[in-house]
């Protein structure tokens, strides 16, 4: 089966600024999340996949075709939704979406019909004859998505589609993307710095940092490949026994941080660690484990570890509560 895209030794410079540095990766069809901070190279990578930006060096193939040689043909199979720009002021919603269809080779009649259908499906029926410059940020994102979908592309390249949306708009957009991601005939590359959005929509992720790939692959394998942390609580008669238990954990390869209160700790264990080892060590040291809770591993944690914002090393127990924000920024 032909991979969705294959990238070999891709380098791209904007003048003296290195945007992508010797990047090599490939991805299978499906929903792929492109994660990274601002300036990591996400938008550049998307534009190169589209053939919109000619890369400085390397090879990029989408559906087995070289984007440099066959950019026009490939763009007929791709729908691209830019983050900020991409609206033609002066046109109304229908004209804009229909024009997108025509530019992708659709006959005018069909593109108009399809534009009406899409605007109804995306909840823009009432606003379809309104000028685009009078649309709200959320409506502009939706109309851009409509223009992306009008020619029913095989691959959607979405650059920060939830950017600038209010919570309701974001939820609606994510629900829409989820429904698109479920379709077997569609692939989706979705760039964002909101990791929660990626977890909701995508099955694969590519993590970029300073123009290089830090990690890529299925989300499950990315999460599974990380050292796991556990919150421990135990009962013991004195401090010495507790200290002995912590020392035993460390000798077994776990990194341990004691809690503020006696009988609490956070332990980060190696990948091959078996949960039973906690009980065995506790028994050997004469303590009774009263609570053993695995810390939930999410993409945010993985991301922060991979880009070096956070180490797997344990934090004091008091700081263990998961933060709600899901952005990648420190």
């Amino acid at each position: 089966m032909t991979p969705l895209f294959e990238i070999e030794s891709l380098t791209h410079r904007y003048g003296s600024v290195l945007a992508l540095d010797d990047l090599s990766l490939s991805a299978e069809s499906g929903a792929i999340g492109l994660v990274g901070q601002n300036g990591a190279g996400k938008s550049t990578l998307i534009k190169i996949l589209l053939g919109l930006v000619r890369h400085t060096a390397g090879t990029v193939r989408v559906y087995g075709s070289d984007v440099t040689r066959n950019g026009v043909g490939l763009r007929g199979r791709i729908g691209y939704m830019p983050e900020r720009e991409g609206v033609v002021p002066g046109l109304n919603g229908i004209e804009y979406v229909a024009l997108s269809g025509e530019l992708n080779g659709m006959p005018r009649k069909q593109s108009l019909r399809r534009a009406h259908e899409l605007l109804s499906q995306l909840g823009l029926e009432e606003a379809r004859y309104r000028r685009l410059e009078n649309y709200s940020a959320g409506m502009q994102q939706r109309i851009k998505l409509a223009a992306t979908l009008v020619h029913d592309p095989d691959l959607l390249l979405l650059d920060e589609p939830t950017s600038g949306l209010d919570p309701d708009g974001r939820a609606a957009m994510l629900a829409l993307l989820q429904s698109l991601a479920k379709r077997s005939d569609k692939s989706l590359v979705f760039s964002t710095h909101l990791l929660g959005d990626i977890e909701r929509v995508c099955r694969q992720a590519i993590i970029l940092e300073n123009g290089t790939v830090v990690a890529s692959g299925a989300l499950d394998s990315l999460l599974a490949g990380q050292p796991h942390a556990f919150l421990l609580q135990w009962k013991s008669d004195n401090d010495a026994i507790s200290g002995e238990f912590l020392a035993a954990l460390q000798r077994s390869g776990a990194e341990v941080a004691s809690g503020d209160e006696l009988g609490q700790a956070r332990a980060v264990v190696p990948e091959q660690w078996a949960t039973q080892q906690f009980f065995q060590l506790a028994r050997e040291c004469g303590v009774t484990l009263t609570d053993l809770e695995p810390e939930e591993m999410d993409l945010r944690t993985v991301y922060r570890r991979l880009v070096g914002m956070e180490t797997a090393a344990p934090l004091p127990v008091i700081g263990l509560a998961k933060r709600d924000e899901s952005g990648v920024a420190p």
Partner: protein
Amino acid sequence: MSAGLRDDWKEHQRAAWLACWPIARTALLLVFRRKLFWLLLGIALLTFMFMFGAIYLLAELKAQQPGIGRMLSRMLPDLDGSGRTFLNFMLAQGTVTMILLAFAGSVLAGNDHRRGGLTFYLSRRINVLYYSVGKLLAIGLLVSLTTTLPALILYLEQGLLVDTTEYFRENYNILFGILGYGVLLSLTIGLLLFALVSWMPRPVPLVMTWGCLFVFLPILGRILSFVFRDREESIREALEGSHWLLLNLWRDLYILGARCFGEESLRRSDEDLLTGAAVVVATVCVLSFVAMVVRIRQLQHHS
């Protein structure tokens, strides 16, 4: 999102180059939505209506009062139905066309560069060439709407009001002249405007530069002709035959346009400037094309 529609049209998917027309049509649609352009088009229409009426009245007078008709024909040589009639008409329409384009430039293409529309276009199944051709087609059609099309209507009117077969047989070169001058105007002005818009998409700098090219440079040309004239040369001679006058691009186009209508339409003072005018126009076209492509590529790669 329904996928069922896909098969309907995928079989009839149009060639990528055909996207030039939707691009041109959209650009014209955006221009026609501005009231100012209708005002300017109205002014252009007034000139046309005046010429249309004058040709009709002259033809009627020639038929019913031959004496008065002949006298008026001598007084108004520009309305005699020769190549110069249409050449001068197109020149006169040029002023309105220039003003129209100065204001239309930012709408035709400037907003694409300024507000990210370029990304929209180039991320579709087209390339820079199709995009540029589409925009040039829009500018060309706008120029033709105010110059070539009314001139063709006047040519048709002139032919129908006199001995039709004979007129068209004897003056077929006028048709080629109108079309040739029209293509020359559309191509040169289109390339120049598109190049300028690519580099200065905002309306005010564009209007100022446009004004410099078509108002300031002709004045400068006349001043330099006067200052650097030969001692034995009269002022009139200097202001008609000096090479400094080539700074007036509109005049250069007029000289080349006159050549399209045939040698008899070319004024004697312009004959010496013909080669110079051709060089200036060709240089402007080449430079504009290069500037346009460089800018679009720059914007595309740094977007």
